[in-house]
C-alpha cells in the first residue's frame, strides 16, 4: 500500500510524483514504456530562434528529481483495471495488483487515425510512431515518406524527421469520406492552418492568418491561387489541394495515388498520379486517452477544443470521485509544459485533499503557473483551448455532461 499511485510517467505524472514525494508521501509511478518521459522522449523543437525544447533532457531532469525524492518507478507495466475499494484504490497491472490511498491518472493522449484504402499495409504508421522510431529508437522509418493530414502535430514532427535527413514527399490531405470530414476539405484545412499562424517559421501564414481571419472570400481566393507545387514548411511541401486516394503495394507500401482537388474539394478527373514512397505517416491529431476513466464513476464531457472527451475535473486536478486525480493531456490536448505544470498542481492537490496537508499558497501558485504556461504556449493544438478550460472550470454546474 502506497499513499499515491500514478499511472503514466510523462511530464504530468513525473512532476506530480516529485511534488507529492517531497511532501513525504510514498509514491509509485507505473508506465508501459521502457523509459520514463512519455511523449517528452520524442520532442525536439525550436521555440524561438536558437531556443530549443529538448524533451529527452527534460524527461531526464524530471526522472532524476523523482528518484532523489524516493519515487518508485515501475516500467514496462500495463494497467488493465482500476477499482475503488472501501478506503483505497486497487490497480491491476501486468506485474500484479497495487493498492494506494490516492490515484492519479496521467495517461496522456492517443493518436487519431484517418482510414483510407491501403492503410493496413506494412509501412503505414501514425506520425507519432515515425517520431518514436526516429527520435527514440534512432531507426529511419524508410527512404522516402509522405504525410497524410495537415495539423499542428504533423508539422512539428515533420521538422524533427527533416532534422534527421529523412526524405519527405510532402503533406497531403486524406481522401474525403465519412470519417475524414473536415480534415479532407481544403477550405476548413486552410482555416485551421491559419490558426497555427503563430508558429514562428510560417511567416506567410501569419500574414495570411491576420488578413484572412474569418473572411471566407479571402480564404477562397487564397485557395484558388495556392501554388500547385505546394508551399514549403521546413523544406517539406504542403499541399492543401491534393489528396491521397489510396496507398498501394503488394506486401508493403510501394506508392500512393494522389489526385488534384478543386478549391471546393471535388476531385479533378484524370489528375491521378502515383508517387513512389516506402512509408506513409498518418496524422489525424490527438485525443485524450480516457479508457481507465471509463472504468470509474467519473463522467466524461465532450469539449472539441480540448481534443474530445475529457474527464470532468476541477482546476486543482481533483475529480468528483474521492481520492481520484487527473493531470496532463488526459484533461485536454496541450503542450508538454502545460502538462508538467498540471502535474505539479495534481501532486500538491493530492497532498492537501487526500492527506490533510495544510493548504498554504503553493496550490494557488501552481495553478497560476498552468495558466501562464497555457497563455505562453508556442505549440497550441486548438485556437480555443482557453475557452474550453473556462467552460470546464467556471461554469461546471451548467455544463451538460455527456
Amino acid at each position: 500500500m502506497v499513499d499515491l499511485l500514478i499511472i503514466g510517467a510523462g511530464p504530468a505524472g513525473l512532476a506530480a510524483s516529485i511534488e507529492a514525494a517531497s511532501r513525504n508521501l510514498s509514491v509509485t509511478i507505473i508506465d508501459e514504456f521502457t523509459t520514463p518521459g512519455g511523449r517528452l522522449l520524442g520532442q525536439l523543437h525550436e521555440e524561438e530562434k536558437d531556443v530549443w525544447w529538448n524533451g529527452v533532457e527534460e524527461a531526464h531532469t524530471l526522472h532524476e528529481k523523482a528518484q532523489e525524492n524516493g519515487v518508485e518507478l515501475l516500467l514496462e507495466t500495463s494497467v488493465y483495471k482500476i477499482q475503488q475499494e472501501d478506503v483505497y484504490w486497487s490497480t491491476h497491472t501486468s506485474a500484479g495488483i497495487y493498492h494506494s490511498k490516492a490515484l492519479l491518472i496521467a495517461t496522456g493522449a492517443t493518436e487519431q487515425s484517418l482510414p483510407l484504402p491501403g492503410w493496413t499495409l506494412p509501412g503505414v504508421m501514425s506520425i507519432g510512431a515515425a517520431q518514436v522510431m526516429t527520435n527514440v529508437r534512432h531507426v529511419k522509418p524508410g527512404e522516402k515518406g509522405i504525410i497524410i493530414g495537415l495539423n499542428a502535430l504533423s508539422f512539428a514532427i515533420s521538422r524533427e524527421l527533416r532534422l534527421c535527413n529523412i526524405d519527405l514527399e510532402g503533406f497531403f490531405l486524406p481522401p474525403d469520406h465519412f470519417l475524414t470530414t473536415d480534415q479532407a476539405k481544403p477550405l476548413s484545412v486552410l482555416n485551421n492552418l491559419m490558426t497555427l499562424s503563430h508558429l514562428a517559421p510560417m511567416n506567410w501564414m501569419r500574414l495570411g492568418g491576420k488578413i484572412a481571419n474569418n473572411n471566407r472570400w479571402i480564404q477562397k481566393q487564397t485557395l484558388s491561387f495556392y501554388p500547385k507545387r505546394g508551399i514549403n514548411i521546413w523544406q517539406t511541401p504542403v499541399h492543401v489541394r491534393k489528396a491521397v486516394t489510396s496507398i498501394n503495394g503488394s506486401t508493403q507500401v510501394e506508392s500512393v495515388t494522389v489526385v488534384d482537388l478543386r478549391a471546393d474539394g471535388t476531385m479533378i478527373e484524370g489528375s491521378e498520379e502515383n508517387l513512389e514512397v516506402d512509408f506513409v505517416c498518418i496524422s489525424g491529431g490527438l485525443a485524450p486517452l480516457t479508457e481507465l476513466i471509463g472504468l470509474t464513476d467519473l463522467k466524461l464531457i465532450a469539449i472539441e477544443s480540448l481534443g474530445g472527451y475529457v474527464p470532468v475535473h476541477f482546476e486543482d486536478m481533483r475529480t468528483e470521485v474521492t481520492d481520484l486525480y487527473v493531470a496532463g493531456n488526459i484533461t485536454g490536448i496541450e503542450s508538454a509544459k502545460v502538462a508538467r505544470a498540471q502535474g505539479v498542481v495534481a501532486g500538491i492537490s493530492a497532498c492537501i485533499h487526500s492527506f490533510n496537508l495544510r493548504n498554504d499558497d503553493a496550490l494557488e501558485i501552481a495553478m497560476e503557473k498552468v495558466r501562464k504556461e497555457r497563455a505562453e504556449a508556442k505549440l497550441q493544438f486548438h485556437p480555443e483551448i482557453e475557452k474550453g478550460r473556462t467552460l470546464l472550470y467556471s461554469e461546471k454546474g451548467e455544463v451538460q455532461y455527456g
Partner: protein
Amino acid sequence: MTKDVIVCRCEGTTLEEIATIAAEYQCSAREVKLRTRAGMGYCGGRTCRGFIDYIVSHHSNHQELTLHHRPPVRPIPFALFREVNDE
C-alpha cells in the same frame, strides 16, 4: 470508396459494412459490434472505437450509441487471471 476503407484493422471490417448494419437494424454500437465483429479483435477496439461510435451515431436512431469500456483495457495473458483468482 467506403467498401475499400477498413475501419477495424484486427477484424477487417469496412466502413460500408458498419454503416449498412447500423442503418438496417437502427441499433446501438454494441449491437453493431456483435453483428460485424468490429472492435472485437486483439486490440480491443483501441484504434476503431471512436470511428464505430461516430458511424453508428450518424446512421442509427438508437439512443445508446457509444461503446463502454470494460477491463481488461489492455491485452493480457490468461495466466494473469489465474494469479488474480489464486490470491
